């Protein structure tokens, strides 16, 4: 029996180019199970591209990604079966109801029928969508769609959650609910990688934060680590982020 459990996520020298543009360059990261990792960066910094590579939606040009020991490139299906991907634009079918959507998700992830049924009801009730379960998603507000998509992402009880701006469109009460749920999930052993533009969310939720800038990881660590890297004794994550990005922008080509 190994005393070192498999890392939840292990990324080595990850690089992705689109023509002449390098979207992600030499990215390394290792996360233990139960981690909550926040990935920050401006628009176009490479966060979503990285997340899509982890989710198996995009092939890397160089490097490797392992999720609980499964290589995304070599065994994508094993990775996908334990991963959930929630992009900033909810992946919904307008003509389906939330319940039908969850039935479909259960089919995609081969969740056992009775388990899926029970979990679908729990999730919809928890998201305050149970009464809306027979309305088509096309009639939903942005926040309701986001909640439905989140319920779909949680249905197969993933061990790795990749959340791209999961709080956009959510009202304050639901956002708090979701935050609590995510923290609860990490306590149960799930690993979460979250991107956000709202620094307070990352500061409050993530135990470790990475700052991306033009495809490169500028800084990585806890808030204290980042403060040290930025040379700031105090200051919020926003201050640190802006300083690190400004410093990196000076002297580097646009």
């Amino acid at each position: 029996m190994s005393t070192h459990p498999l890392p939840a996520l292990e990324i080595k020298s990850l690089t992705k180019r689109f023509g002449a543009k390098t979207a992600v360059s030499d990215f390394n990261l290792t996360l233990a199970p139960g981690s909550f990792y926040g990935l920050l960066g401006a628009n176009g910094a490479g966060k979503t591209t990285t997340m899509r590579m982890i989710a198996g939606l995009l092939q890397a040009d160089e490097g490797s990604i392992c999720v609980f020991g499964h290589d995304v490139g070599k065994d994508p299906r094993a990775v996908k079966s334990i991963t959930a991907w929630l992009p900033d634009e909810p992946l919904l079918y307008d003509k389906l109801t939330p319940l039908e959507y969850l039935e479909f998700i259960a089919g995609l992830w081969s969740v056992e029928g009775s388990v899926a049924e029970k979990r679908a009801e729990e999730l919809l009730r928890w998201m305050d969508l149970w009464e809306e379960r027979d309305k088509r998603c096309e009639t939903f507000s942005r926040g309701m769609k986001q909640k439905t998509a989140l319920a779909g992402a949680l249905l197969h009880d993933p061990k790795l959650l990749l959340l791209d701006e999961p709080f956009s469109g959510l009202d304050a009460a639901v956002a708090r609910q979701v935050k609590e749920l995510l923290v609860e999930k990490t306590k149960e052993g799930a690993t979460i990688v979250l991107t956000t533009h709202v620094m307070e969310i990352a500061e409050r939720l993530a135990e470790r934060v990475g700052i991306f800038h033009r495809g490169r990881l500028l800084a990585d660590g806890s808030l204290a680590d980042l403060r040290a890297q930025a040379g700031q004794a105090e200051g919020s994550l926003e201050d640190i982020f802006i300083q690190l990005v400004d410093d990196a922008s000076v002297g580097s080509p646009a």
Partner: protein
Amino acid sequence: MMLDSLFVPGSILWLARHQIRLSWRLGRLGKKIPSWIKPVFTILFVGLLSFSMGYGVAKIFEAAAGDYKQLSSLAGAVILTLMISGISMNLMGSFMTITEKGDLDLLLSSPIPPHRFVAARLISSAWRGFCIYAGFATIFFGASIVMISPMFASIYVVVAGFAILDAAITYMIARQALLWFGLRNGRRATIALGAIGVMIGLVGYQMVSSTGSLGRLAADTEHPNASLIQVHDVIVSLTSNFSWLGGTILGDWLGALAFLVAGGVVSALVLNFAGKRYDQDVAFLNGQNDHAPHKIRKAHPQQFRRPALVMVFHKEWLSMTRDPLFVSQLIVPLFTMVPFLGFVWNAVSNPNEQSEMAPIMGAMFAAITVFNVTMLTSSLAWLTASVEEARDLLQASPLDPKIILQGKVLAASGPAILELVLVAALVAWAWPLAALTLLIMGMATCAGACVIEFSRPRPTKRPKMTQRPDRSLVTVLFGLGLGILWACAAGLAAAKILWWLLPAALAITISYIAWATRPRDLSSIPVSQPLVAVSVGSPGGPWQRVDQT
């Protein structure tokens, strides 16, 4: 300078130009087509259509030169059926235009008087109608050239007048449907009304245009057919009432101008009535709830236990059938087969009166059915292959892409196969060879249409699909070619002509070429592979298309 003075910002024409530009961009087919292809293709297509069909019209006219009354009656009846179809089709478009909320808040928050928006919408709608009807009118333009006569030129005045009239009438009907039935049921009502109108127009057109062949059938000296003689006589007596209408496209300039005047007067009345009430209408529209009535269904545990293939099929099926406009667009062309069913009924009920032309009717029926099936499958295959709203979800799931593909193909071809089986069973007694042929060739064309559409998916979003046919031009042309070739093959085979092998071989070749020349990205994961190239390269937007990355 002259144009600038016409399109003064805030004026009706300026707003109409804005509206037309928007609808033109919405209706563009594809994006990555080299700029020279469209004009060249359009000129060739219109030229060919104009000349070939115009030549036929000219010949008919020459043959019936001495019988102007008969010719104008026939032309009038044909035009009437086309007008019914045109108004019905435009009705759905008008309702969508009226209820499209996208820019209403922006427009109405401006200080421009609301009636100008109505006027702009009427002009935009009339322009759209004019473009479509002028396309049909090229047939007569061709005839004018063949005959070296300006006689048919008056059709363009009729087209302009009718387009204006059409825009005004459909606006009022759509408005009333909204006010009477509300947004949701009003949409359903206009779709149903439009579909019925198109159906009447299509069937009427077929009946009128087949008057000649009906006459030949009825007058078959060996087997005179009382029922067909009756049908023929009814149609002829009906068409005789529309000679005045036919005259407007045969050089009756006064009649043609009357159309234009009527269009202008009706439009002015509609503008006066609806323009004053436009802000009230919009307020009513904004207060409408488009939600479906809330029905709580009981949980069905077995629905969570269905196999993945069934889940995928079910999802596609629900998405298709819950779009009434799309469904109506699919179903309406099937009514082209209705008149033939009359002949089937006649053959079954009067077995002793079988005409010698029955095998020809069977062959034509087989050809039309196969063509319809191709179009139906192509549309559904395009929908399931390209209008996938959660492509990332499918790609991120561990499910074997082959199962997803199978589910989608099943959903795309299922309705067509069902139609084939039903139609074959229906006509098997009257035309057994035709039934067998349409069944076999129909299955073949279903497979071919799926191959073509799944070889070139063009990701697009469902809400825009009925307004914006963002399909690959290659698949549209290949699909059309496939339908024509398999239809020819079916017709020839049903008529026991061995030449059916030639179009069949060509049709198979078309499908093979489509698959062999498909983008390389599709080779390994037919359904979800495009995603790989889709979202990346565009960090800001996850739904860029492959060709935009």
